[in-house]
């Protein structure tokens, strides 16, 4: 490539890719720098690890780290585990399969905050679920289901919102598996589970890894579901970051960098574990 051609390429990439790399690079750089005391917005900048030491010592922080990882991992695993059988079921068209696919994908059209509102409407103290349980005589009085301590409400919402996305990715991958491969396996006596384990899973591994990673990153950094439906005695990392920013940008930066590191490391780990479990061929 000539110098002139390189300049053309760079000029073409500048408004799109250039802006992305510049802006996200700056965001990451500022977050890391602020977590070490630089770019102080209210005074003198001092390079220090004090903010890290301070946060790592706080129970609030360690609980938020544990809690966010718990939400991220379970949201990703549950969404993918539910989407897989549905994707396999919808692999070959049958009467009504398009309608089924459309209904299953409907939550993709519902904004997260709206989903949270619809959900708390159903489970609230005098929501329809409490009315129903009392109506059939199982419960004597309404029960408090909102903001439960195990964060099942948040996990339900995350799965409700993300399962269709996993389904979208997995359906494409599963439909691409040729019929004759599966027929051959069936003829050789492979049962349903063996066919999944030895053929479908390895051949749809990269779609599954993509689904796991994208859902994990979204769920680990959840803010709105947590604030609306999550347990009141714990904070997610995003919530903690917004909360501590009111007092210290540097401590917020520590939480922000933690969140990025968890998103990155967690994604890699999930992808690797998925691959080891399924022992599939390399991603294609």
């Amino acid at each position, binding site marked *: 490539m000539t110098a002139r051609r390189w300049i053309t390429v760079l000029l073409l*990439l500048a*408004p799109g890719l250039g802006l992305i790399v510049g802006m996200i690079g700056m965001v990451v750089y500022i977050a890391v720098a602020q977590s070490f005391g630089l770019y102080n917005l209210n005074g003198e900048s001092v390079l220090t690890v004090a903010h890290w030491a301070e946060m790592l010592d706080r129970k609030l922080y360690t609980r938020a780290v544990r809690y966010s990882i718990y939400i991220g991992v379970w949201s990703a695993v549950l969404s993918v585990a539910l989407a897989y059988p549905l994707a396999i079921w919808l692999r070959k068209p049958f009467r009504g399969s398009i309608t089924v696919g459309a209904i*299953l994908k409907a939550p993709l059209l519902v904004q997260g905050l709206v989903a949270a509102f619809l959900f*708390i409407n159903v489970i609230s103290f005098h929501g329809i679920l409490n009315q129903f349980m009392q109506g059939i005589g199982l419960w004597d009085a309404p029960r408090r289901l909102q903001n439960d301590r195990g964060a099942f409400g948040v996990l339900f919402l995350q799965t409700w919102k993300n399962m269709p996305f996993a389904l979208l990715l997995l359906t494409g991958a599963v439909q691409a598996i040729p019929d004759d491969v599966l027929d051959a396996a069936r003829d050789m006596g492979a049962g349903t589970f063996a066919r999944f384990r030895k053929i479908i899973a390895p051949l749809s591994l990269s779609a599954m890894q993509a689904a796991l990673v994208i859902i994990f990153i979204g769920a680990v950094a959840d803010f709105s579901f947590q604030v609306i439906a999550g347990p009141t005695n714990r904070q997610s990392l995003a919530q903690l970051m917004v909360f501590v920013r009111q007092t210290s940008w540097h401590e917020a930066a520590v939480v922000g960098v933690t969140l990025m590191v968890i998103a990155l490391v967690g994604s890699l780990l999930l992808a690797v574990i998925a691959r080891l479990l399924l022992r599939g061929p390399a991603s294609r």
Partner: protein
Amino acid sequence: MTQARINSVLMGALLIICAVWLIIPFTMAILWSLVDPAQPWTPDNLLPPEMSTFRWTNMWENSALKPALLNSYTLAPTTAIVTLLLAMPTAYCLARVPFPGREAAKLLVLLPLVVPGFVTAIFFTAILFQLGLTQSRFLAILFAHCILFLPFAIRILTVSFEQVRQDHIDAARDLGASPVARFRAAYLPALRPGIFASLLIVFIQSIEEFAIAFVVGSPDFTTVPTLLFSRLGQDFIRPDAAVLSLILVVPNIILMLFLEAFLKSANPSLSSGKA
């Protein structure tokens, strides 16, 4: 049990689940938005004792709904158009100009999707403070939204640019067409579905984006999602939240269905923009 029978049993089960999953929550939201304040909806009634559109008119007249709608519906189309213009050159380059490292460049485009939204929002405001650019929240959110949604636009348009046929371009050039005429004759027909899809997808994403709008916009710049969040948080008023939820979700569903139908007719492989 035959495959068809299994399918029909599964279909029945699925329809029941979907009723619980979708119809009940939305029906509840519609009912809550119609509760008349004179007659509260108590748990002993299955339906609200008195229904009226009071909440809708009240929200329209006495809340930040009007400015929020105006903000959201100014921001989203502007974001869609600016993002499209910014994405075009990069998409053209990634699709039609071979250069070393092109695959890496395609991966780098996805960067904004990898960094969690709230981290981007918080440290984008830090950058704004550093640069002293806090005068226009609208422009700040617009800029951040463009960066955030560029990956979608670039990805969709790259696929479109790949579908432009070289012989059409060559034929137009051989017949002496000017660059503009060449673009209109050879590029535009192949690009049209991608342009349309990119505009729609970015529009929908911008309408419902919460993290940036909340962190950069607060306290004085509201969009429909941030207004809904405030109504779900400290001043939780269920009927008002129901009104806002429906306002936020209905145009979205209509636009998405429109997008799906349009893409299926134009180019099935682009469906949902995740091609």
